[in-house]
Structure formats: structure tokens, C-alpha cells
């Protein structure tokens, strides 16, 4: 998100402690067990309005589980999560947009019918939700395929449809779990650029889970580094690059490279510790 860059440093400074009363999404000391095995331990993150956070970490460190807990799909063992004032798991379910790793499009519904699913479940009239779908479909580059069936689309297009379905209910918090993980390098880069554009003007709080450090730095205002056994946060790295609007040309920028090598070093260290 190319959010007005002047805001970022101050916001990052205040959230480094993980405690920010003004945050839109506040995750405090969350722990989660699966079959008595600790998966997450003492995880605290806060995300402000219009802020884009990336979580990186080795596979199996509980990144996806964390999103499941935040979205309300899973009940944490301990800790609290507050999203836009909603505290209980049941309250959060349905009020946080969540794009899973797989697009999970319903094969028997057209692109338009898949996109409006969230609105339909909220009881919106088909006519109105179709109007909302149409408005955003252009921006998402899927206006021409609204009548297609999912199996007629490429992986990148399917992922756009899934994101449209996730954001249409207009929730203030958006969770993205490796949204480009299954795509080839070219589609991946295209979709990253496009995501930045789509979210440019939004006031959403976004958490992106990825294993791609470069992707994390390019997209996020702050990179949270996690380690495994059980999953916990080892560091938060604010991303302050001079000219964020040309961020995608910055892959050779010294500051970019410094951030990248610092984060990779953190990930490498914990690999060797294990």
C-alpha cells in the first residue's frame, strides 16, 4: 500500500511495542494449541487503519493458524483479539475479510455468482450485489469474465475473483494468506503491483502472510518476523523507503537490500537454531 508515506514512520514507531490503543486490529498475547501441541505462543500484533503488515516466517511457524485465529475460524487458547471493537470469536466471524491460500471458488457458480457470495450470505438483494460486483470487477480486471465458470480461468484470475469475494462485504480488516503462493513468478509480480493499486486508496488494515521476503518488503509498511516451535514473533521491521510510489523499481535500492538481508538473516538464524 502506497499509503501517504508521512504517516508511516510515526505509526510504526507507536506500534513497535505491540500495544496501540488506537489500532483497528489488536492481537494481544494470543496462544493456540492443536491436540495439546502448542502452535502459537504469546503473539501480539496491532494494525492501524490503512496500515499493511506482512508476516514472514518458515513454513510451519503458525502463520496461517494465526490468521485462522484472528478471523474467528479457530478459538485461541489464551489472549484477546479485538477487531474494530468486536471481541468474541463469533462476532469477528463474518466481519473480517479473509483470503485463504486456495481460491476456494464454488465450481457450480459463475465468476459473478462467486464474487457476490459474501453479500448474498448477508441477505443483500441479488440486483444490488450484482451492481457492487460490477463496480469493482473492472478495477479487479475480471469484468470480461463475470459470466465464465471458475474452471475456465487461470490461477491468477481465480485469485482475483477470490479477493473480490473477500473484499466486497467491505470489512475494515483484510487478511491475506499467501495469496500469490501458487502462481508463477510473472503472474505473481503482476498481482502484487495490482494489489498495491487496488488497496491504495483503502483505509483497511491488512495482514499479509507470505514466505517471500521480497514480497513482504515491497507490499508492507511493517514486516513481522516469526519463528517456530511454537510460533512466536521474533522481530518487527518497519519498512521506510524513500519513494514508495516507485517501490517496485526498488528491488536494487540499497535500503531495500539492507532490509531484505536483515530479515533473511533473522530467518536463517532460527533455522540453524532448530
Amino acid at each position, binding site marked *: 500500500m502506497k499509503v501517504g508515506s508521512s504517516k508511516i514512520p510515526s505509526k510504526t514507531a507507536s506500534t513497535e511495542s505491540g500495544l496501540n490503543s488506537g489500532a483497528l486490529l489488536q492481537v494481544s498475547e494470543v496462544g493456540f494449541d492443536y491436540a495439546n501441541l502448542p502452535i502459537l505462543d504469546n503473539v501480539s500484533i496491532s494494525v492501524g487503519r490503512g496500515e499493511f503488515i506482512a508476516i514472514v516466517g518458515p513454513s510451519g511457524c503458525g502463520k496461517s493458524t494465526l490468521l485462522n485465529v484472528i478471523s474467528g475460524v479457530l478459538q485461541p487458547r489464551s489472549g484477546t483479539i479485538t477487531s474494530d471493537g468486536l471481541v468474541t470469536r463469533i462476532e469477528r*466471524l*463474518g*466481519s473480517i475479510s479473509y483470503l485463504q491460500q*486456495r481460491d476456494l471458488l464454488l465450481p*457450480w457458480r*459463475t465468476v459473478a455468482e462467486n464474487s457476490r457470495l459474501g453479500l*448474498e*450470505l*448477508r441477505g443483500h438483494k441479488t440486483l444490488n450485489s450484482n451492481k457492487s460486483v460490477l463496480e469493482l470487477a473492472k478495477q479487479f480486471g475480471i469484468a470480461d469474465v463475470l459470466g465464465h465458470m471458475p474452471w475456465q480461468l487461470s490461477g491468477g484470475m481465480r485469485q482475483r475473483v477470490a479477493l473480490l469475494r473477500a473484499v466486497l462485504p467491505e470489512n475494515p480488516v483484510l487478511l491475506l494468506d499467501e495469496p500469490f503462493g501458487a502462481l508463477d513468478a510473472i503472474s505473481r509480480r503482476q498481482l502484487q503491483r495490482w494489489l498495491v493499486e487496488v488497496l491504495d486508496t483503502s483505509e483497511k488494515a491488512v495482514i499479509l502472510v507470505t514466505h517471500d521476503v521480497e514480497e513482504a518488503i515491497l507490499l508492507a509498511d511493517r514486516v513481522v518476523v516469526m519463528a517456530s516451535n511454537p510460533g512466536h514473533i521474533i522481530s518487527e521491521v518497519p519498512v521506510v523507503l524513500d519513494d514508495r510510489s516507485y517501490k517496485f523499481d526498488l528491488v536494487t535500492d540499497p535500503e531495500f537490500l539492507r532490509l531484505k538481508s536483515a530479515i533473511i538473516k533473522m530467518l536463517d538464524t532460527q533455522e540453524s537454531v532448530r
Partner: protein
Amino acid sequence: MIMTPSVWFRLFEWIPAVIVMVALLILWELLVHVMDIQSWLLPPPSVIAMEICNSFDILMKHTGVTVSETVIGFLISVLCAVGLASGIVWSRTVERATYPIIIASQTIPIITIAPLLIIWVGTDIHSKVIVIVLFTFFPIVINVVQGLRSVEQEMVDMFRTLGASPFQIFLKLMIPSALPGFFAGLKVASVFSVVGAVIGEWFGSSAGLGWFIKIAGGQFQTARIFAAIAVLSTVAILFFLLIVFLEKWSLRKYPPTAERVIRLGES
């Protein structure tokens, strides 16, 4: 009707079966004449065709009885089976209470229950309907349960994050997911229901193709038996094709299932 290439192609696919069928009928006709087989023992196809024409009215009357039993039994079976399958998927208690009994009941040959039903409920349509329900219930329940269960946890989670209620998940995710399995069960049940009707009629009735065959058998009217069998099998095939047509229509939006069949002869 405009014959598109695909329609022609589909009709073309039927030609081998038609050729084999006609060849078998000709062979049958020739063998009966050459070997001079008595008509009461094995009538040739030509005599059977004549019999169908001659007793067309009475055949249709009994066909009507069998068809109405079949359709009523089939519909009741579908309703009960879908209801129970939903209950089994909805609640563990319902599953534990009913699933073992349903499976155990399938080990009892239906043919042994038919005489009991005649004793209990009489020789009118009710006993036939019950036989059909008992006969067709199982394949539908099994297929629908399997279909409803085929839904992935991730899909359910996706629905929940969109704020879906359990009922909405059932309606908009589980039922559409179960539809292919539902039709697989219906196809089996459609054929079974005709068989069930005949079995019911066999053990006690005063009309229907099953009864008609039984009576004709007692009088050594072999051509009549064959005529009734031909009509019965036509009815079953038409019923099956009707279900296939409904399936094709209902699943028209589903992704095409690629037919990948290994054919050693066509490598």
C-alpha cells in the same frame, strides 16, 4: 431441431449397440426356425412383436399400474433418503442411531420381506410402495451422505468467514456439493424401483406387469411373458434416461468431468 455435430456424434455412438442388438434378434429368429423350437418353449422375436401388438391395450393397462407404483415408491424413497442423509450429516447422534441399522437392513434380502408385507398391509399399492422404498432407499442414502461429506473443511471455513450460518452452509455449500452423488444414487434407485415394483406384485396383487408375467407363466403363454418383459425393460430404460436427463440439466454448470478411460485396445 438443428442437428449440431455433437448431436450427430452422440447418435453415432449408439450405432454399434443397435447393430449388435439387431444381429442378436436376427440370430434368435433364425435359430428358432432352423432348430424348429416350439413357440411355447422359446418364441421368435417376430411372434413376441406380434404379441405386443395384439395385447397392447392390456399390456398398457398393467404398465400403468406398475409405473404408478414405481413413481410413487421412488419419490417417497427419495424424500425419506434425503431427509435421513441430511440428519446423519447434521448430527452424530442421528448417525449413530440409524446408520448401523440401515446397513444391517441391507443384509436381509428384500424378497424375503415381501410376503410379510403382503400379510401385514395387503395386496394393494401400499405393499409395493414399501418394497420399492426398502429396495431403493439404501443407494440414495449412501450416495447423498458421501456427497454431503465431500465438502472440504477449508470451504466451510471460507463460508464462516463470510458470516454464513450453519443453515446457509448446508443450503449453499453442502447441497450443491452433494448433487452429483445424489444423482448417482437416483440412477441406481430408478432401475431398482422398477424391480421392486415387480417383486411386490409377484407376491400378491391383482394388476401390474409383475402379476401379468406370473399369470402368463402359469398358463405357458411364453410369448406374453417376453412381451411383458420387453415392455418392462423399456419402462426401466426410459425412467433411467429421464433421470440422466435431469442430471445433465441440474449439473449443467458443473465443471465437465474429463472421461479418462484406459483402453488397451486403442493405444
